[in-house]
């Protein structure tokens, strides 16, 4: 009994690490690989003569992403708002400006795919989508700004201040990519919402946003077409992709056709390994599999929620909230689009859909959340 209080403390309190979250993440990534192989093998064989073309690339990025996640999770997230030794700049500021530069770069020099200028060609590594990186920047930077003076958020002006900081990033994205801008906006609002004590202005500004949003939708022609498609999916000529997705979902029934047995992936759903992958999951694994996957996402979100409320400080809590908002928004919007519950917009299903930038950024974010969890001191 000669131990000091400090020693006792050190003995009882130890660094927490959320393994359930880690394994949930790994499971989702692996499940994603399986589904990417299932959905893409036919098209990969047809186009590239190699059934595992997409699988290989995704596995490469997934593997790299997992390594980055593990690395990041072992670094204290607070390092991001600590001035670096030599250049006297905080990494978060650096990230902020890097994103702005990349966003400007992509608008001028970016590759155009399917009519949108969103990609930077990285040669052998494929293409990189800077808007994905921006998501990390927005999460961390918003949390940083809010954390500087959390009480300001109680007023609308404080919220505006945050919006002003984020506006350059948001503005640069919305030019080419409305759906990503939507996700980024939701992340920002979610963080502010969590930080604020007063909620009234959120309701007002929410209404205001809805007004502006619908203006944007109805006055930009291609978006109003989407509304038409959404309402008349079975008859509208441009509803093909969504309708094919619905066919896939519906023909899955309760137990599905079995893994690999989808018919709709055989060219009926274009690029079924991308945004529409959930419809093939429904077709192959049925309502059962789909609900199981949704439950996995809920579980993931729940773990992030636990970390967010137990975070050692507001900054950590807000970062976790941002990641939570990011994943939740993408899951909900993706499923809503695939089931034609909302007008179509291109948002990938986190961890599952094909896309190197997307999966790496998500894993980086999970790394940050795990890092937050690692700073929780728990009693044994």
């Amino acid at each position, binding site marked *: 009994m000669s131990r000091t209080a400090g020693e006792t403390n050190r003995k009882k309190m130890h660094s927490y690490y959320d393994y359930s979250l880690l394994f949930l993440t790994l499971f989702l990534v692996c499940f994603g690989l399986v589904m990417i192989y299932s959905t893409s093998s036919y098209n990969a064989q047809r186009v590239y003569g190699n059934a595992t073309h997409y699988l290989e690339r995704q596995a490469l990025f997934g593997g790299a992403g997992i390594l980055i996640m593990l690395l990041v999770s072992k670094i204290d997230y607070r390092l991001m708002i600590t001035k670096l030794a030599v250049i006297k700049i905080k990494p978060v500021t650096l990230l902020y400006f890097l994103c702005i530069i990349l966003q400007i770069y992509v608008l001028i020099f970016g590759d155009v795919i399917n009519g949108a200028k969103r990609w930077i060609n990285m040669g052998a590594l494929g293409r990189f989508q800077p808007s994905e990186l921006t998501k990390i920047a927005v999460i961390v930077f918003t949390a940083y700004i809010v954390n500087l003076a959390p009480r300001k958020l109680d007023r609308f002006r404080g919220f505006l201040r945050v919006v002003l900081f984020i506006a350059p990033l948001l503005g640069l994205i919305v030019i080419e990519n409305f759906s990503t801008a939507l996700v980024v906006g939701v992340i920002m609002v979610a963080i502010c*919402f969590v930080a604020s004590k007063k909620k009234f202005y959120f309701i007002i500004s929410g209404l205001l946003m809805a007004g502006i949003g619908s203006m944007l939708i109805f006055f930009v022609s291609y978006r109003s077409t989407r509304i038409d498609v959404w309402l008349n999916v079975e008859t509208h000529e441009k509803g093909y992709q969504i309708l094919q997705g619905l066919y896939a979902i519906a023909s899955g029934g*309760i137990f599905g056709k079995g893994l690999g047995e989808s018919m709709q992936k055989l060219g009926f759903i274009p690029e079924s390994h991308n945004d529409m992958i959930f419809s093939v999951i429904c077709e192959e694994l049925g309502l059962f599999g789909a609900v199981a996957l949704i439950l996995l996402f809920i579980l993931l979100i729940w773990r992030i929620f636990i970390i967010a409320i137990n975070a050692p400080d507001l900054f950590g809590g807000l970062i976790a909230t941002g990641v*939570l908002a990011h994943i939740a928004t993408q899951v909900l919007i993706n499923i809503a689009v695939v089931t034609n519950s909302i007008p179509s917009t291109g948002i990938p299903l986190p961890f599952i859909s094909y896309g190197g930038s997307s999966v790496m950024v998500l894993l980086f974010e999970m790394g940050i959340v795990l890092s937050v969890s690692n700073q929780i001191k728990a009693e044994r």
Partner: protein
Amino acid sequence: MARNRTYNKKNILVVVSVVILAAIALTGRLGYLMIAKSEDYAARAKQLHERERAIKAERGSIYDRNGVEIATNKPVCTISVIHSQITDPEQVIRVLSDLLGLSEERVRKRVEKVSSIERVKSNVDKEIADKIREYDLNGVMVDEDYKRYYPYGSLASKVIGFTGSDNQGIIGLEVKYEESLKGIDGTILTLTTAYGVEIPNAAEDRIEPQPGNDLHLSLDVNIQKYAEQAAKKVMQAKSADNVKLIVMNPQNGELYAMVNVPEFDLNNPYTLIDEIVKEHEGEQITSEKMNELLNGMWRNACISDTYEPGSAFKIVTATAALEEKVVELDDTFHCPGYKRVEDRIIRCHKAGGHGTQTFVEGIRNSCNPVFMEIGARVGVERMYYYFDKMGLFDKTGVDLPGEANSIMHKKDIIKAVELATMSFGQSFQITPLQLLVASSAAVNGGKLVTPHFGVEIKAPDGRTVKTLKYDTEEGAVSKETSDIMNELLESVISDGTGKRAYLPGFKIGGKTATSEKLPRRTGRYISSFIGFAPADNPQVMAIVLIDEPVGIYYGGTIAAPVVAELFDNILPYMGIEERYTEEELQKFNVGTFQVPNFVGKTKKEVKDLLKVYEFGEIYSPGEGETVMEQFPLPGETVEKESDLILYYN
């Protein structure tokens, strides 16, 4: 660093709750789609995935009266490659170019082409296709199909007809009996990808095709062959344009043969026959011209072309006169070589005239003035009445497509001249088949039959589906008149213009004809002959038309022997036995005797023996002096004038 306050945590809980609520709502939506809408959407999706592919029904075969197959199906295969499924392209190229006899380069082009499916060769024989199948190459598809096949090639080509690319009848019986022959196509429902590529091993819904019914004809392959042989022979000998020959059972209208030489190859119906090619040598044949030539080649002139029947039509005139009782057999007529009708002089074929003759002699001589006279006695009104009764105003109703009808004067414009020319078969046109049917009514006891080929339609399992029935009009001609006509027409052969159709042992009746083609005086004739046997109970009747013979063109000289040759072959075949009259037995030295024993006899002894017996040709192979073996064997009964073979050692 700011603290993570309680209200912050509550706020996060609010966010998470919103997320969970939204997730529950979406799960509800999923449940709605995957349970309530499942059937509807799944069915619609299935419709997208399924491709219907027709399985051709096997077309029914066509058989002759003895069950000999004359139109059937040959299994053929189509070889295709599916690019995405090929695992060993080099082997595929090697095997296919080897077995299909195609150049490697050509096969390589097909194999290496990136497409869903590429046809390499169609109409491949089944044996070759089976060999390819044995290799079990990935990505090589062997599809079975049927192709119409005619084992006898050109036999009765214009009667049987052929089928087109979809296996549908184009001409002839193949068209007429299309509904019975074609069967009902089946379908295979296969699953395909969005690019139309079939998914192997996917469950298929299959509706079996129902094969077509078989058609049994009255046509006899052997009689048809004999007829074609005889027709071809005379066509070549007389350098004729074409020769038509129809053989019918006058009692019931069953057609045994219908020949239109030159015939064409039913297995290559789109290839012009040599005769036509020669005629158009050096000409530029446009596709329009080609069509015209092909249609001409396929035309069944026996039923589609009309002609002036000429003297053969005197059968009808005589029948009408006898029915009308305006002439007696021993009525006498005088022929000075012409007859004046109103202001016209119409000549007889014999320049000096036949002098005074009875009606019977008038028929034997085929004397035009006699028939002008009796035609005038019958009169227009009654003549047309008998024409109608003998079916000359209607199509015969033969079960072939494209039958033509007669071209007759309108009754009210017929004057004496027209009536006179009509009496000996000029100034109107009928088809050869119409004349054959009218003539058969004159000799078969008075029945107007419907000529036909189709007898029975049978299911593939042999069950009779339908026995085809045809109208027969009794009493078109009275029995008495018919009997008289039999005798009269037999005497034409035994003592008249038709004597070249005489066959010892058979009673043959008939009538010759020589028709000058229009316009007159161009030296183009149709020589024809209509004959039947046995005259006292006609079992078979034939008409032959030789179109534009070169040189001698008299029907009695060149057409009658064709029917004689045909009858000589087919009467024994049909089981109609020779019945020689005493006179014939002597004249033609017919009878039988027993073959003596030659074995062991020397050449000298043989010579003496042969003086007694009436052998035909004697063959004696071998060098020796005594007979070792003989054929026929000793004691056998043979006909006189049979050949004898003696082997000397």
